[in-house]
């Protein structure tokens, strides 16, 4: 399993951002206790899934699909959201993370750093991990300052 500090300093923070932004883009907000509960469950899931992958030597890649499914389940059952909002929020959040991972890869290649070096150093891992959240932060800013949501952008009206 990975160092537990990664869970507290990286995964929980990312999970909080992911859940908040995913739901905010659908015009939904969770109460702080529920938000922390969902983020906590998801952050812990990341740590467990990655740990299992490491232990059994499974190549990373498909863990993203498993984590997307888990995120949907936590938002649906702990966050008590409708299933369509839960699906939308989890897909949105994970898509932004995927785009962010491309950005991180771009930065690492530009700086000519080896991935092995980053992954072996706890604090470098955490630092570069947060660069994955660049698009989440961007969407958070759009939502906060310009009230941007998919509901407004796509004119999703009443039944």
């Amino acid at each position, binding site marked *: 399993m990975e160092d537990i500090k990664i869970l507290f300093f990286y995964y929980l923070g990312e999970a909080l951002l992911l859940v908040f932004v995913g739901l905010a883009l659908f015009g939904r907000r969770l109460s702080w206790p529920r938000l922390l509960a969902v983020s906590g469950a998801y952050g812990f899931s990341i740590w467990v899934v990655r740990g299992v992958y490491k232990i059994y030597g499974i190549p990373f890649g498909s863990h993203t699909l498993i984590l997307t499914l888990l995120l949907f389940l936590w938002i649906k059952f702990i966050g008590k959201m409708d299933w*369509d909002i839960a699906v*939308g929020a989890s*897909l949105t959040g994970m898509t932004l993370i995927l785009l962010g991972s491309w950005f991180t*890869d771009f930065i690492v290649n530009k700086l000519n750093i080896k991935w092995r070096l980053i992954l072996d150093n706890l604090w470098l891992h955490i630092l570069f991990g947060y660069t994955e959240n660049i698009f989440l932060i961007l969407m958070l800013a759009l939502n906060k300052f310009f009230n941007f949501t998919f509901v407004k952008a796509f004119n999703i009206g*009443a039944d």
Partner: protein
Amino acid sequence: MINKRQILFLNLIQLQVFLSCYLAISYLNHSMAHIFEIPAIIVVIIVVLVGLLCLLTVKELLRLAKKEKDAEIALARLEENRILIDALKAKQHDFANHLQVLYGLFYSGEKSALKSYMKDISKDLNTLDKVASLKSVEVAALICKKMALTENVVIEPVIKTDLGNLSVPPDKMISILGNLMDNAIYEAKKQKDENKVRIEISENDGYYVFEIWNHGHIPPELFDKVFEPGFTTKGKDGSGMGLNIVKNIVKQYGGRLEFVSGEDTGTTFRVYLPQKEEMLSKTN
């Protein structure tokens, strides 16, 4: 309350975006090889599912587009209903005045004047009744509006059918009749003595026939140009597009547009529009 169908539609698009990003990032991170270690049947199932989702997305898009079009038609219909109600209200006020005149004539014993006045009103009532009985509310509203609001021109509707099987959508119908009536009214206003426009609606051999007549005439040398886009006899007042638009709409719905014009006979524009059964048999 958010529309659930639209959220589902959005989710379908997001799923496709997510899967595309996932495959793209996996390719860039050179982890595609590991993806292909997944049994082929799983990959085939995922591809088929995504394909089906794409089809579902397109179907939903088309359904939403149709819904938007239906809503536009319903809005146009509502507006025409409102105009019809306003025109009928104005007529009601008119008739209150007529009743006062009738009372005055009766009270003063002017029997022949009373008879003549009643004859005129009943003719008017009969015409209005026939217009209001048209099953195409939009056409009825347009005619009532023109009758109520056109100054210095007498509009005579002659209604011989109820337009129950009209195949042309309301907004297109308004375009056809509106343009033809406006042209006829414009010409009629120029005539000092013969300032009439007659609109006759009848049926003939599976078609509805709309005839719009006025006493003006089109010179023979302009006959070929009348339907050309940009051609107008109204100077700055005209865009030159009205008859061209009418011709295109009539053609689109399998109809026919013709006109006759002479110095003594005036100008008649005749539109033939197929009734609904006729459209069905043509499709078959």
